[in-house]
């Protein structure tokens, strides 16, 4: 037979030929030194490539489920990172900003990001725990259905930010004063 072209020889090496052609080429390789060498070269290339990729696999860091952290542009994503950041900030100042915001903007809800779905925070952790990378073993079970995901986001929000309604009036006022002092301005009094 004719010497097979590179694609056919590779298909032979990959076990991608029908039996008849495969047998033909096997016989041909036995007889043709050039093609035997070509066939062996494919094996060498494949081995080197597989080994290299296996080394890369082995160099994989431990698995984590956390928001991507290396790209500055991610910080611009509205609800993925912003929600987490907002929750952390809110927690840090005792929910005060939200109290103030709620009061001054009358009818807006006290929750943070209105749209959950870009899931930067997956798993059964609240956003406050989610800042560093989370080893996957700590994130059991994962919420994967969108319904369950929404529920978890809602829970996370509840646990991270105390609803304004549950703060006594005097505390709201005090917290607003603290915030105003930080901002260097006096809060407007609303009805």
């Amino acid at each position, binding site marked *: 037979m004719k*010497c097979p072209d*590179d694609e056919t020889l590779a298909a032979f090496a990959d076990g991608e030929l029908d039996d008849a052609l495969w047998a033909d080429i096997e016989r*041909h390789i036995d007889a043709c030194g050039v093609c035997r060498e070509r066939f062996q070269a494919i094996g060498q290339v494949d081995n080197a490539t597989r080994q*290299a990729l296996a080394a*890369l696999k082995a160099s994989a860091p431990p698995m984590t*489920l956390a928001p*991507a952290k*290396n790209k500055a542009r991610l910080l611009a994503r509205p609800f993925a990172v912003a929600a987490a950041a907002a929750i952390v900030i809110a927690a840090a100042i005792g929910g005060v900003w939200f109290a103030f915001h709620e009061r001054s903007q009358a009818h807006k809800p006290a929750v943070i990001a209105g749209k959950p779905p870009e899931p930067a925070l997956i798993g059964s952790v609240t956003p406050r725990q989610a800042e560093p990378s989370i080893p996957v073993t700590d994130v059991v079970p994962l919420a*994967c259905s969108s319904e369950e995901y929404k529920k978890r986001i809602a829970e996370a929000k509840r646990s991270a930010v105390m609803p304004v309604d549950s703060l006594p009036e005097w505390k709201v006022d005090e917290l607003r004063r603290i915030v105003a002092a930080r901002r260097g301005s006096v809060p407007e009094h609303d009805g």
Partner: protein
Amino acid sequence: MATEKPTFEEAAKAAWPTLFAAAMVLTENRADAEDAVQETLTRSCAAYGSFRGESVPTTWMYRILVRIAAKERVGHEVAEAEYEKVPSLNPPPDALAALGEEVAIVLDVLRSLPRRQREIATLFYLEELSYAEIAVALDVSQETVRAALRRARASLRKALGVETHERKVPDEMPG
């Protein structure tokens, strides 16, 4: 499919090393690779409910990674034609030295392949898949898979210094 669908966590754990290695090839550097894998897990977690087990989860996630990585490289794609012509003068800046020179060479060659070839060759070498499975996973024809693998192998062979005779078309056998 006869086998039961694994939980997302099981699937993600099994896919993790492959996705990481693939991302190292499909993106420009380790930081981008880690981001791309994270995003792949996030998206595949959200979409896992709709995954019907038509392929192994790793292949399904690879497909998601491919899309993310392609977007990531948009800037590079524009200059890809040029990029292919320019041999890389520096080793990839990924502290790959510890993994050996051959790893760096292979990674360099795979990264420099045109996008489709790169995606096909990476899946082929990382997972033991048939041409048909790769074709389905990446929405291409089997002929495309064959041709991409031939070209990728030729590039790898040159870079790795494996000497051989090339035959684009069948020849009459001498004698």
